[in-house]
């Protein structure tokens, strides 16, 4: 690419090399909702290379025409661009192909290989392949092994094979390590792209820009100035027909082990020496390695779990988790988690990190808030403020500054600081300065899946989770999950749908003299 003189100095979007993008599980929900709409949107944005081919693979018998018709419906329903651009769709549809087969059956892979070789000849895809596993985790191993046995994996200089996998990356440390070992028997780490769609969100990338593209925040980003950090990933919906999946996962496996810890890593990492895949991921994983393990009695002291009871949301009654379809009426699966974490490193030692995540909470919001320390000295004590640092003469505290990074909805950054209320007395009041991406930059950026699929096509794994990140996240989470399993929760369900979780979550932070931010 670099030798192409027409690219020299041209500021264009990046266009990848052509390949066959094979979707395992092409008749499934993820393919319909996310993958095909994202690929179509990349085609509309002219970001797919000539020759780029998409090959669906799943159990269902289907003709290619039928597959195209199904995918058209999916695009019509789920693409952010409406209506369908007929001319672009016609071109895109001509690149859609389908093979049916069973993941466990080697002959299916021979058919797949024959189809791939044919497409290489007609479409100029030159043996480049991306395998996207949109499949149940139980099928990972069969696909991985059969790809290898069928001769469908290569990593030569002149053609590549990459594999994209979806969470869950295991259920605990042992299964995650086993999955990594399986993958590594067939693929090198640089060929593996583990998707965590939070990393594809613009605002998460903007957190990196905020921290390392400015000079004013980073000097304050440490234990000397930060009192504590809060990370909230709150959903207002219930399990929405995914009861079967959720019964296996719970909030810790669905959100905390992956998305929430990813947010924490980006918030707390040291500046990488370059914005390249391994430099960034080296720094991220160090944060997880520095997380103080929560073991033994600390599990009960520093973690809270919950499950929603009936309640109401948006003026309508909302059922309990145990009443949701495909959920056991005696389920002990957690739909809410809160924890008090500590990062044992030079920068953050002693700074508590409070995290919470859950379903059927009061609001849909994902936010990281950095709470700065109280003023060290009540400068104005001879007027209205008293001698105790940060306290006014009437005993109330001067609110400390807060920097809030909103991931969704209303992506943006808010800074709360104190200002004087106009008038003859020195009365202080917290005010907020609000920056919203939507109103500042207009329009909407690409969706997370578009960005991540494009990065995988370009071979850039910066925004994907590396094996050691996944293991480190499980190393932290597994003892907590094991301890929870040993002592089943008492008093479930313990919070009403549409509220901010169980009372114990408030106790967790309030006993340190702090409170959850009002969201």
């Amino acid at each position: 690419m670099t030798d192409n003189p027409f690219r020299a100095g041209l500021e264009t979007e990046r266009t990848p090399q052509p390949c066959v993008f094979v979707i395992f599980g092409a008749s499934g929900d993820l393919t319909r909702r996310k993958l095909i709409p994202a690929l179509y949107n990349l085609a509309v944005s002219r970001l797919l290379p000539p020759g780029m081919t998409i090959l669906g693979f799943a159990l269902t018998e289907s003709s290619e025409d039928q597959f195209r018709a199904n995918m058209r419906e999916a695009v019509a329903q789920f693409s952010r661009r409406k209506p369908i651009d007929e001319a672009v769709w016609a071109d895109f549809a001509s690149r859609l192909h389908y093979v049916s087969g069973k993941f466990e059956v080697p002959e299916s892979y021979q058919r797949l290989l024959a189809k791939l070789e044919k497409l290489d000849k007609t479409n100029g895809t030159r043996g480049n392949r991306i395998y996207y596993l949109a499949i149940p985790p139980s099928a990972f191993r069969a696909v991985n092994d059969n790809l290898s046995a069928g001769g469908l994996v290569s990593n030569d200089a002149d053609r590549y094979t990459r594999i994209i996998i979806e969470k869950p990356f295991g259920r605990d440390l042992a299964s995650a390590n086993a999955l990594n070992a399986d993958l590594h028997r067939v693929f090198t780490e640089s060929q593996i792209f583990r998707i965590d769609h939070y990393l594809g969100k613009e605002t998460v990338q903007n957190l990196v820009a905020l921290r390392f593209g400015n000079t004013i925040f980073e000097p304050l980003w440490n234990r000397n100035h930060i009192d504590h950090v809060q990370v909230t990933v709150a959903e207002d919906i219930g399990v929405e027909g995914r009861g079967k999946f959720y019964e296996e996962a719970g909030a810790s496996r669905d959100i905390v082990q992956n998305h929430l810890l990813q947010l924490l890593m980006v918030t707390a990492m040291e500046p990488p020496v370059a914005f390249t895949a391994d430099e960034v991921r080296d720094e991220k994983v160090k944060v997880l390695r520095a997380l103080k393990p929560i073991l033994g009695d600390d599990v009960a002291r520093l973690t809270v779990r919950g499950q929603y009871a009936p309640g109401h949301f948006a003026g309508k009654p909302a059922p309990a988790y145990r009443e949701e379809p495909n959920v056991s009426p005696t389920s002990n699966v957690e739909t809410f988690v809160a924890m008090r974490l500590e990062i044992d490193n030079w920068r953050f030692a002693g700074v508590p990190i409070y995290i919470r995540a859950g379903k059927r909470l009061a609001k849909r919001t994902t936010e990281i808030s950095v709470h700065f320390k109280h003023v060290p000295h009540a400068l104005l004590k001879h007027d209205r403020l008293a001698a105790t640092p940060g306290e006014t003469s009437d005993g109330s505290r001067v609110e400390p500054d807060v920097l809030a990074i909103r991931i969704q909805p209303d992506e943006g950054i808010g800074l709360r600081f104190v200002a004087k209320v106009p008038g003859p007395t020195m009365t202080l009041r917290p005010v907020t300065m609000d920056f919203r991406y939507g109103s500042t930059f207009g329009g909407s950026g690409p969706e997370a899946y578009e960005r991540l699929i494009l990065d995988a096509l370009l071979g850039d794994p910066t925004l994907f989770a590396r094996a050691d990140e996944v293991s480190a996240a499980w190393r932290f989470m597994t003892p907590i999950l094991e301890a929870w399993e040993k002592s089943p929760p008492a008093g479930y369900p313990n919070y009403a749908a549409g509220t901010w979780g169980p009372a114990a979550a408030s106790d967790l932070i309030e006993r340190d003299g702090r409170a959850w931010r009002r969201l």
Partner: protein
Amino acid sequence: MRLALDAVEPELSRLWQEEADKGGAPRIGLFTLVALASELPLLGRAQGVVAEVAATYPSRTIVAMWRQGVDAAVTADAALHRITATGAACGDAIVLEATGGGREWLPENLGHLALTDLPMCVWWVGDLPDFDKLFDRVAVDADLVIVNSGEMDLRDLEKLSMICKRIRDSTALTDLTWFRLRPVQELIARFFDDETALACLTSIERLTIEFNPRDGDVDAASTQAGLLFGWMANALGLKGDTVAWNRGSGWNEVTIGRLVGRFEHRHRDDVPPGSISRVTMECDGARFEVERQEDPQLFKWSREAPGAPVPPQTLRIKTPDESTLLIRCLERPKRDLLYEKSLHLGSKIVRVVAPRLSTRIDG
């Protein structure tokens, strides 16, 4: 025009206070965009375009225009931009009107009204006069100067090339037409992303650009085609020191070393004058083509190169309006060396067939 210049800031503060009292949007600004409407009829167009820019990038816009008059004066109007007619406010909309000798005062006043510590971008609306002191004086303080060569004659490429050399290093000159070309450039670049096709580059013998000529146009090419040719010649490593032109009905050909470049007219009512309809490169056994389809927004990309089969691709390139192009320019307000190189080489190649400016200036 009803405000004295020193009343502009208080008026804007008042309007924003009104907005805040209604619980409206916060006051944000990313840059100051100055639009110099060189002729009175361009005023409305400039105002419409800057309003659309502000809806994407909240900013302060200052549209300046001038008219004949005995008394030297500059007066102003101040209002707020809104995302939609009744939507949130998204920037300051200032209009300056200079009469008589007041035109000379514009540069200083634009400087006073520019937002503190944020980039100042200046857009010259319409054709650029051969030499205008006002342009130079405003350009001196600007971070970005935006012109549109698409509204100029072919000979003006040389004028732009000279301006580029004249303005100081910290000011970037950019061109709406350059941004209009961007998607086509990207399609051309993707011909050579693989080794097999790349190998054909050194043997390209023929390069054809079809464009929609302006009514009664006598120029050998549109400025857009000239700029595209400059870019391609630069990528092909051509120097342009010795060029030989040949002319027929509806076409012009230039020979530079081994390459024959051909500019062909293709009249179309459904695309703006100057627009490119087809680019073809040919060499022994290989052909690379980007061609506009019947639907003027659809382009077919096709490549026939030995040993590298690839199916053709159909892509949509929406014809961008002026505000979209301006927004693109404003995304990266910095010097674009590739534009400068393409402009210098393109103007050097076409000056032979668009000689009027050169003779006047050289002479």
